[in-house]
């Protein structure tokens, strides 16, 4: 039985048949998951953040499991934008998947370079700008932790990429004032926001009695951070009710996805849950549809930000 819920959603001018997407860095370039479900069956594939050049990433160990979560320090290993555009994007489009390309840079210039390369690529739905990497020009401070640096990255991408392709700015929760950062990147031209990237964490290995990860600190993801994601989405949706949010952080079931949607997310990326369950996206999508129907929603749109209803003027 297909329940009569219209699951379609939009992020700025990009349309998606369902709101459940992969999360950047948690689906590689898509091929690996295609054995488990047709990629076109989910809302979109958000690809692993790509940089201009090929990159080895951080030393191993790169992960540590933590209670209801995990730390990772991959360090943006990848093939570089040229190989990515030549091989991965065409393959995804062939599968009829909707594609959101995630880009990352170490300098403001690098983001613009990546945007320039993307401008000429047809068929992709949006670009997600991952500004949660360390800014090599500014004492290694993470772009997304600095309102000014965040704005300048998005401004550069906006100017280079032109008006058509929606820009989704992906923010870090590790800041004192998230709505302020969000407002800054929206002013600079972001059409949508992706919330949240991982939370900075560390595990000490009790055998070596040193930080366990090769990169020392890592990003915390998984159900452990879901309450932080819900809060971030709720806060930012309250501050910027007209800016679409791609929510993520610990979503592992339909109820989790609905929680983020009620808080204000127009779409939901599923990251870590796919590691534990390769078909997580499909079951989350089905469960979400049923939960919406059970609550009398005819469309997903009606549920977005519904938890704010008594606060809206």
């Amino acid at each position, binding site marked *: 039985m297909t329940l009569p819920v219209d699951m379609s959603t939009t992020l700025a001018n990009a349309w998606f048949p369902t709101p459940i997407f992969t999360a950047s*860095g*948690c*689906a*590689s370039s898509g*091929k*690996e*998951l*295609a*054995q*488990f479900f*047709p990629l076109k069956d989910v809302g979109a594939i958000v690809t*692993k953040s790509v940089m201009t*050049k*090929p*990159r*080895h*990433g*951080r*030393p*191993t*160990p*790169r*992960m540590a*499991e933590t*209670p*209801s*979560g*995990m730390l*990772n320090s*991959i*360090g943006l*290993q990848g093939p570089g934008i040229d190989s990515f555009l030549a091989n991965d994007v065409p393959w995804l489009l062939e*599968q009829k998947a909707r594609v959101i390309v995630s880009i990352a840079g170490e300098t403001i210039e690098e983001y613009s370079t990546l945007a320039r390369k993307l401008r000429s690529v047809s068929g992709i739905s949006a670009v997600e700008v991952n500004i949660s990497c360390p800014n090599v020009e500014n004492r290694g401070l993470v772009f997304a932790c600095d309102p000014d640096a965040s704005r300048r990255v998005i401004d550069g991408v906006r100017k280079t990429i032109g008006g058509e392709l929606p820009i989704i700015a992906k923010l870090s929760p590790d800041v004192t004032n998230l709505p302020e950062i969000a407002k800054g990147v929206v002013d600079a031209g972001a059409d949508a926001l992706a919330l949240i990237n991982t939370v900075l964490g560390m595990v000490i290995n009790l055998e070596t009695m040193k930080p366990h990860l*090769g990169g020392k600190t890592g990003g915390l993801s*998984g*159900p452990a951070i879901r309450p932080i994601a819900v809060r971030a989405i709720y806060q930012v949706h309250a501050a910027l009710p007209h800016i679409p949010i791609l929510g993520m952080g610990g979503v*592992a079931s339909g109820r989790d996805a609905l929680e983020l949607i009620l808080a204000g997310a127009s779409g939901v990326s599923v990251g*870590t*849950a*796919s*590691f*534990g*369950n*390769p*078909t997580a996206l499909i079951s989350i999508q089905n469960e979400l549809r049923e939960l919406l129907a059970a609550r009398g929603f005819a469309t997903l749109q009606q549920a977005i930000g519904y938890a704010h209803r008594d606060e809206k003027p």
Partner: protein
Amino acid sequence: MTSINKGATQQIATIISNKRVGAYHQIHINVGEIVKSCRPGNFVAISVGGDSSRMILRRAFAISRVSESSQYGGTMELIVAPHGAGSRWLCSQIEGAELDIVAPLGTSFGIPTEPINALLIGGGYGSAPLFGLADVLKSRGCKVDMLLGASNGSKIYAPMEGKRSVNSLKIYTEDGSMGETGRVTESLLEIVSNRNIDVIYSCGPMGMLRAITELVAHTEVIHQCAVEESMACGIGICMTCVLPIRNEDGSTSMLRSCIDGPVMDGSRVQWDLVGQIPEVHQ
């Protein structure tokens, strides 16, 4: 659609038996059809801890052997060391319990088309997949010698029926509680040359695999080893399990040991770079 994870499926498997064998648990599970796609060297990824577990990642275990003939349909054997919370949970599951598994995953040992002289080396529970491999090699007419090592005798896994497929079996323990005192690498080069070994198949701790690679580096012997890196996903989507592998052109690639492994060519693994960042190639 793609060749990555080809044949892998996610399914519920029922535990048929779980018995202690020395320091390990020998667990048989009912897996049905997929036994047809399982090859020696492949592994299975298992959810642990039940529905409300705080352990969110699967645990990887080598497929020790599979059988099609049993009364249960296809069955799979695992040899599990109770190590941390996840593997202990698995060892505590009783007959009839259901497991959420994804299998078969990863690369398998290369099987020669001609009858060769093979040396199989296992460390600890690393011997598990070698007996299944021995069967296959034997059926291809190969001569199969085996060396097993562990810290003590309770950690040597060498089932009776498995021994039938090997021409010789030599056991080493570090404390001398079983077989000879020492490590499998003790007189490896001697064995290799005395027995005209063509290929070494190994599975065990990374230190052992590295030592074997270094010992045979200047010989003609091919060394296929099944590596064991910490894996978050087991299916190639997280990039946590990478190892530095030397390319033809001398550059290094960080390859995923879950899909480009676990079986890898030992001579191409840059053992000295494990845990470091190689210079960017290009």
